[in-house]
């Protein structure tokens, strides 16, 4: 099962390597990872989606993260009321014939056309995971040429 965890860390060189190293050394899987600065420049915020077969592994992941000296806090969103978002850039095949069809699909999501050049078009979408998944399904018939995702970020109330 996938879980969203956020980790507040010291904004120091090598911290990302510590986290990545921990996951590889202990055989945990990261599905996505988003890292950025916060309002406090000495602190970075990491949101990660991790794959854990059971509660025991999830607990271990959190405990092992907490054990790192440079980790300040670990938050598990699994049982917390929160919102999460992901930004995706999608490159699809484009033909003028299908423009209206495409636009009507995009209207159902928080998505828009950023640019089109020749026979390709780049779409930007920002939404929660399930919606992004549906959007990708809907766009499938236009032929997705390329897909780039930022990974999930989350915020609790």
């Amino acid at each position, binding site marked *: 099962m996938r879980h969203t965890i956020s980790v507040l860390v010291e904004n120091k060189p*090598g911290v990302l390597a*510590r986290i990545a*190293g921990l996951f590889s050394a202990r055989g945990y899987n990261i599905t996505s990872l988003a890292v950025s600065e916060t309002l406090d420049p000495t602190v970075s915020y990491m949101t990660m989606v991790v794959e854990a077969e059971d509660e025991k592994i999830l*607990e271990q992941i959190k405990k*092992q993260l*907490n*054990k790192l*000296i*440079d980790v*300040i806090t670990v938050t598990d969103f699994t049982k917390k009321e929160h919102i999460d978002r992901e930004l995706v850039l999608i490159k699809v095949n484009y033909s003028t014939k299908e423009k209206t069809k495409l636009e009507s699909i995009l209207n159902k999501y928080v998505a828009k056309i950023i640019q089109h050049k020749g026979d390709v078009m780049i779409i930007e979408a920002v939404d929660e995971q399930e919606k992004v998944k549906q959007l990708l399904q809907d766009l499938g018939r236009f032929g997705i040429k390329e897909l780039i995702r930022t990974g999930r970020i989350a915020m609790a109330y």
Partner: protein
Amino acid sequence: MTGAEILIECLKREGVEVMFGYPGGVVLPIFDELYDSDIKFILVRHEQGAAHAADGYARATGKVGVCLATSGPGATNLTTGIANAYMDSIPIVAITGQVKTFLIGNDAFQEADVTGVTRPITKHNYLVKDTVDLARIVREAFYIASTGRPGPVLIDIPVDVQQKDIEFIWPEEVKIRGYNPTYFGHPGQIKKAAKLIASAKKPIIYAGGGIITSGAHQELRELAEKIQAPVTMTLMGLGGFPGTHELSLGMLGMHGTAYANHAIMEADLIIAVAARFDDRVTGRLDAFAPYAKIIHIDIDPSSISKNVKVDVPIVGDAKNILGQLLEEIKKTCDTSDWLKTVEAWKKKHPLTYKDDGKIKPQYVIEQIYESTRGEAIITTEVGQNQMWACQWYKYIHPRTFISSGGLGTMGFGFPAAMGAKMGCPEKIVFDIAGDGSIQMNIQELATCISNKINVKVAILNNGYLGMVRQWQELFYKKRYSYTRITGPDFVKLADSYGALGLRATKKEEVRPAIEKALSVDNTVFIDFHIEPEENVFPMVPAGEAINRMIGGMA
């Protein structure tokens, strides 16, 4: 002050009296400071020896051990010792030189990414990029190494950081926002634990290395006597409870005593104190202790419920928590029937070996025990020698058994003995070695002689890498693939270094050789020619339940 001066000043303020290490190009400024310093510097013959010596020093004294090496190969040679300290939660600070800050990443001469290499085998590590940070980092390093669940911390210092001249400011306080170990047990959990203990008819205490780290041996003894529960120890826990005590069951696990393994399998309550349910202890996990509720006391939350599911977890320092528990426990069950059962197992299935007139390794260790009256510090290498040392010497005091538990590092015992002797010069320090292991760090003989560090080494010489040979005998149809090993003439070798070499080839020569070794003021190698194919029993085959022992009870 220069960075190098600041480093030495900080080490002194941290109470460092001894360091082990080896010089090199990018640590020259530090060595120049050491030249006039009162810190005693022990020049080893290989950096691995320095790391193990710092480790042995830390285990014997409870203080932080310090080792120092140059960049690149010097630093990478420390890594086995650092990993060893990490697995056994031993506080050491390893200081390494690094190439100049502007050369880092340039593949400079003797450059290695040492913070990168040691990240997974240190509790924390630092690359000092500016001399201004040095004092704070040294202070943090000692604090992190010695508090919470202790462990090794590495400080990598580029040579230009050592040379730069700045004003020295000693940070009085250490404040690390991401590091706040818990020291006292949660009162609610203590109550729950006391309740479980009150209703247990077959309790057992399973004590690990944290007893020694936290100095909880007195509280452990009080608890065992108060609730009348037998005590079994992990390899790391030996000495945490007197092996001579009537409630002691000795070590449990793969080469534990039959009665310890049976007791834990039959128990209705396991009080695990600062032990981590490692695979060498539990054997087959799904068959482990089927009737027991488990109370698990550990300072590291990630140790709890990692391998076995625990009923009452208590995070905190063992000494504090045992103290809290002793206050909370008002009534206990009558455990006399249980103790009688365990006592009967002890009588019926003691540790044993066949005495056939040849030199048996078990006999050698018994004789070392008797001639030192259990008061020596024993270090071990890894393999059969280590397991026999666990089984046949009774450890009465904490910090008298020093052995590579988690990592299983051959070559550990001799340099560790050196470190232990530096920390406890008044004690007899005996390394129990095999003829394979001793050859892994034998170069430290020169260190012992030149610094007059008089340790005694008992080589249980069977001409084999004995433990691997034992597995080949039992599980690989006696196909002794590359486990026959030769060595030098250990007596001549000792002599060539200026140590005393002794040899025993007959049983009656064993005790006199030990007495002779103890009587001389020198490092001594004793080459005991033991029965070549003697095995360590009892033994739980890998992956079996721990009561299914070869040479144990049916």
